[in-house]
């Protein structure tokens, strides 16, 4: 599976607003390029990104062509309780990459 980097403060207080940063390895093929033989290279981009916090969706993004390879997505969320952040990227081939990270509330 693709390499992923996710970063946010490992410990936070209830009510804190934290920044969550994500980076994923993906070619983000636009669909507008041709290969060496002139045939169109089919589009293959991550078209959807979601993040849930203990099951509640806290961020969702729809991605379109013209977003660079290896997209970096950062967003903020309010810390409510200790639990899991689940990140999910879906691409045009239907591949879904899911990553889970623990968050601890002091």
């Amino acid at each position: 599976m693709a390499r992923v980097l996710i970063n946010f403060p490992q410990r936070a207080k209830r009510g804190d607003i934290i920044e969550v940063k994500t980076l994923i390895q993906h070619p983000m093929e636009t669909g507008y390029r041709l290969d060496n033989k002139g045939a169109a290279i089919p589009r293959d981009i991550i078209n959807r990104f979601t993040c849930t916090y203990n099951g509640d969706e806290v961020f969702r993004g729809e991605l379109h062509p013209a977003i660079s390879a290896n997209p970096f997505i950062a967003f903020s969320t309010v810390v409510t309780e200790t639990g899991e952040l689940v990140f999910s990227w879906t691409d045009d081939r239907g591949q879904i990459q899911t990553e889970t990270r623990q968050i601890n509330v002091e």
Partner: protein
Amino acid sequence: MKGLLKPLLGLAAATTLAAAPDERRSGYDFAGGEIRAMQDDDTANPGSLWVLQGEALWSKPVGADGRACADCHGDARVSMRGVAARYPAYDAALARPVDLEQRINQCRTEHQRAEPLAWESDDLLALTAFVARQSRGVPVAVSTKPELHPFGALGRELFRQRQGQLNLSCRQCHEDNWGKRLAGSVIPQAHPTGYPVYRLEWQTLGSLQRRLRSCMIGVRAEPFDYGAPQAVALELYLMERARGMPMDPPAVRP
């Protein structure tokens, strides 16, 4: 008259500055704030993805003997510290310098009995990035061995050699006109401190050899083949020019 003199004086100043060793500036100094911020934050630096991959490859057994890099070299954080800052290095058996990518492939074929990795393949870039990452902050320290002198001299000659349909040498841009713009981009001084680099234009990580080839294609010259002795000589000369400057791989460049 004033209008005429100003640019001339500016040019003279730039030429003098390029010659003074303490006026050297890495590509990082020429990059914009956003790019620098991207490089400095490991989560935002896309080069980190290859470093992660390289870390996994480091301890993965390969080849006929089923040996991993880690089986001989141990913890890369210790054993590979400062190594990339010393490349290209002289190889006594080959009687010529080899760069880091070539050394990794040499290790694979001779010690791991595995297939060499293709130039610019993700795996080779990943291993190079992982090894180079251990030299972040270490000053460039290529060897001053006399055996390397002819190769450094060849590199220096190539750096000054006009080439291609545009008939430009490396030096004309990177020493005589650094800091000015070529189309929208600032011309840097060509100090290869951050390779392999994540180049936004490439949308991927790339080696110094790829960078050199791009420059050569830019001046409409026939680029060196990957791994060509001339390419390694030029790499060596560039690292000699950058001796003492801190390494910052994997760097992010426009």
